[in-house]
């Protein structure tokens, strides 16, 4: 049996200032560090065990992963496959100004690179498939992945058997900062169980829906 926890990083400087981060690198804010610490302490007190933490090397994820790894005494492996989507020229853009930077289109398909030279939905889905497969090829155990909202959405697509859709029609799985999803995978029956999605420590309101066109 595999227990797989997919965790989004804590609040980053980029989240705070409201930019589309993609693969641009922002550290955690003090609040983000605290979110990670609280989660780590909570997991420690509940006796949560991981055999391995696999983290995106981007700072906001790796700092989150290190806080948890230190607290729970778990080794970390960095895997660039878990980096956030490459948003091309949109990377670093102010989220409130994105609508002006992206000319409206009648339709876009899932193969369109985002931001001119970024990853398409299919690119991202492909990367998420490879990253998930790599975990399932490891021995059964408990794995924590520390990563980012965009690619974690596609990892969920891989698990659930959903393909990326054209235009804005793909479902969005919300991950708050340090929100996490838990799965069980039974490799004998090849069945996935979704234990929780966007689980959070406290019931603080999730941040507002991302209204702009993420795909």
């Amino acid at each position, binding site marked *: 049996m595999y227990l797989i926890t997919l965790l989004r990083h804590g609040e980053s400087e980029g989240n705070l200032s409201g930019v589309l981060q993609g693969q641009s690198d922002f550290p955690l804010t003090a609040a983000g560090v605290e979110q990670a610490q609280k989660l780590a302490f909570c997991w420690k007190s509940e006796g949560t065990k991981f055999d391995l933490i696999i983290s995106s090397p981007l700072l906001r994820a790796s700092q989150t992963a290190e806080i948890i790894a230190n607290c729970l005494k778990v080794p970390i492996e960095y895997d660039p496959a878990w980096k956030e989507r490459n948003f091309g020229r949109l990377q670093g853009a102010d989220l409130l100004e994105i609508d002006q930077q992206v000319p409206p289109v009648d339709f876009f398909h899932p193969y369109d690179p985002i931001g001119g030279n970024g990853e398409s939905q299919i690119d991202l889905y492909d990367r998420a498939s490879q990253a998930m497969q790599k975990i399932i090829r490891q021995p059964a155990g408990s794995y924590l992945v520390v990563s980012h909202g965009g690619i974690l959405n596609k990892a969920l697509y891989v698990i659930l058997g959903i*393909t990326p859709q054209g235009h804005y029609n793909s479902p969005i*799985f919300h991950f708050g900062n340090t929100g996490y999803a838990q799965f069980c995978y039974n490799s004998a029956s090849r069945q996935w169980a*979704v234990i929780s999605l966007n689980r959070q420590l406290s019931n603080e309101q999730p941040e507002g829906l991302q209204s702009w066109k993420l795909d």
Partner: protein
Amino acid sequence: MYNQIHTPTIYHIILLRHGESQGNFEGRHQGQANFPLTDRGRDQSKALLERWKSEAMEFDLVISSPLARAQETAEIIASGLNIPLELDPLWMERDNGLMAGLSEEEVRETLPQPPFIHPYQAIGQTGESQWELYLRAGKGVQSMLNRPPGSYLIVSHGGLLNMFFYAILGIAPQPNFHGPRFRFNNSAFATLSYNPTSHRWYVLGVNDHMHWKSEEG
């Protein structure tokens, strides 16, 4: 923008599974067999009510399966939050045929165990197939979106709510209980939004049972 404040354009939908029932407690296949809540199931529902009160949660309408375990859960929430309640058999649990009300052992002793179950096959000899359940859940989705945008609480059952997820996410029924299983603990809920102007579903949370942490299920 002022328009969006005064007339909601987004559907907010919470899918809630009933609290613990007598059938859950005894480990029975319930289906449409009608078991009441246990005291624990009532406590779970009340704990959720208190949580939602403290969060100032608001709904325009509660819609519930008429099966006792769901209806009783819905009544606790609806009367506590002072929201109207509608019952609709569309939200009942899967008709599981001759399995209704039987324990795991009784099912093994009295019913044949087919080696392979295709998604069109009646479960428990006379019950709903996976596809029939999926189609009913699809009608449930449609019935919600025939209503005006607003904030709705649906009180229902694990099997049907799983197919609701399949319907909105675009997952087809699969044979032999393959396909992902969305866990719903007793009195756990999932939070969804739907934007009809972009046809986009947002999944904000699944199996939230922060008000009842004592079991991981």
